[in-house]
């Protein structure tokens, strides 16, 4: 077994009404996903502004994923539609600046989709692990 196996730090912004409950369900059903996924609960996926994502990277995240209700199911009617547009624009910009596109993702996970939550996280962690450490959006001062 390797001693210094690289484990990415993932920040997952989860909407309170669907995805956070989905994460809960994943836990209750004992579905495994890596412990390095740090969940931050937000009232709605559209609460996540670009600054949150950039700051997560600054503070050492290797990947950031935003999970919200499925389009059409937003607790606030339309929040996730805005998320969809905003993140499309932001992710495209990050890509434009040469930041690896696999480090950011938006997924729709409902409260009933514990399995999807775990699978999504596993897949995301795997992709980010393959990329390695976040070097392009890092703040050296925040490295331990």
């Amino acid at each position, binding site marked *: 077994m390797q001693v210094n196996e690289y484990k990415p730090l993932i920040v997952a912004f989860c909407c309170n009404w669907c995805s956070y409950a989905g994460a809960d369900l994943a836990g209750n059903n004992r579905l495994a996903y890596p412990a390095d996924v740090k969940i931050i609960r937000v009232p709605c996926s559209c609460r996540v502004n*670009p*600054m949150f994502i*950039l*700051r997560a*990277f*600054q503070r050492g995240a290797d990947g950031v994923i935003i999970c919200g209700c499925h*389009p*059409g199911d937003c607790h606030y009617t*339309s929040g996730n*539609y*805005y998320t*969809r*547009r*905003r*993140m*499309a*624009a*932001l*992710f*495209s*910009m*990050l*890509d*434009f*600046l*040469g*930041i*690896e*596109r696999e480090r*950011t*993702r*938006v997924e729709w996970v409902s409260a009933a989709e514990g399995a999807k939550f775990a699978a999504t996280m596993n897949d995301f962690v795997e992709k980010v692990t393959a990329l390695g450490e976040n070097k*392009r*959006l*890092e*703040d*050296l*001062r925040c490295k331990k």
Partner: protein
Amino acid sequence: MQKITREQLIEKASALLSNSTVSCVLGWGMGEFDYDVTPTTFNSVEELEKGFVFSDFCGANFSKYLVKKAAACEGKILVFLKPCDTYSFNQLLTEHRFDREKVYVVGIPCEGMADINKVKAICGEGILSIGSKGDKMTVTTLYDDEPVSIDAKEVLAERCLNCKSKKHVAFDELLGDEGDVIESNRFDEVARLEAMTPDERFAFWQNELSRCIRCNACRDACPACTCEKCVFDNPNSGVENKSPANSFEEKLFHIIRAYHVAGRCTDCGECSRVCPQNIPLHLLNRKFIKDINEFYGEYQAGAEEGQRAPLVDYTTEDLEPGEVFDRRDSDA
């Protein structure tokens, strides 16, 4: 190179001042040299005759000044707007940044403005005077015995080379034609960068943004940046930072700056014009414009007053963030 002259503008302004349509005029004030004009308020015909200039170096976009100047002027303020400025004007009106009733807009034609850096690149330092006649500019310098004649097209500012529209979209009166929206190649450079590998793009931006000195000129000159208090000036925001302490800070500032005006940016190019370090900031804005056009349909901020910006709008059929790249990859 400009078709309209200083005299015509002064005549128009004097007439409007004299018949009390307006009580002050926002125009270009004479500088030390032939290229360093300053946006200035003129209150009388005498002041206009003494200090008003109009030349190929009158590039500043006056729209944003109206936020402060319209409120400060007692009566109406006369403002001369070039076609590209009128887009910013509409956008600011859409955002209720000033009172339309306080402003009298005279739309003026624009043949493209010159970039003094390009003039200096050709003629060198020590410019004593710059004259303009037809398509030629005559530059006298300290170091050339004879004046140097240059092609005005050669020194056009980047944003004018890629002019998107000669059409005035807001005015009370026009000097010259209303003009038309024109075809431009303004997205070519963005497309060129998109075609690079991520590593190349990263290297490109790392090089450009590393020059940033965080003077905030791009933000302060931007007609779309009109927040009363910017998040980067707010000590409680957690991101207030006066210096580009490292490459992350540089990126954070420029991503957020461009993002915050995404969908509202009219592509006037002021950000790149004012940047003391010549960072092509307009490319970030154009990237957003290009993406928005591609993802959600053609949209030109400021084309009409009262438009809803694409990022505060949605349809149920929008593409997923993940599809952004699938789409581009399949195009390639």
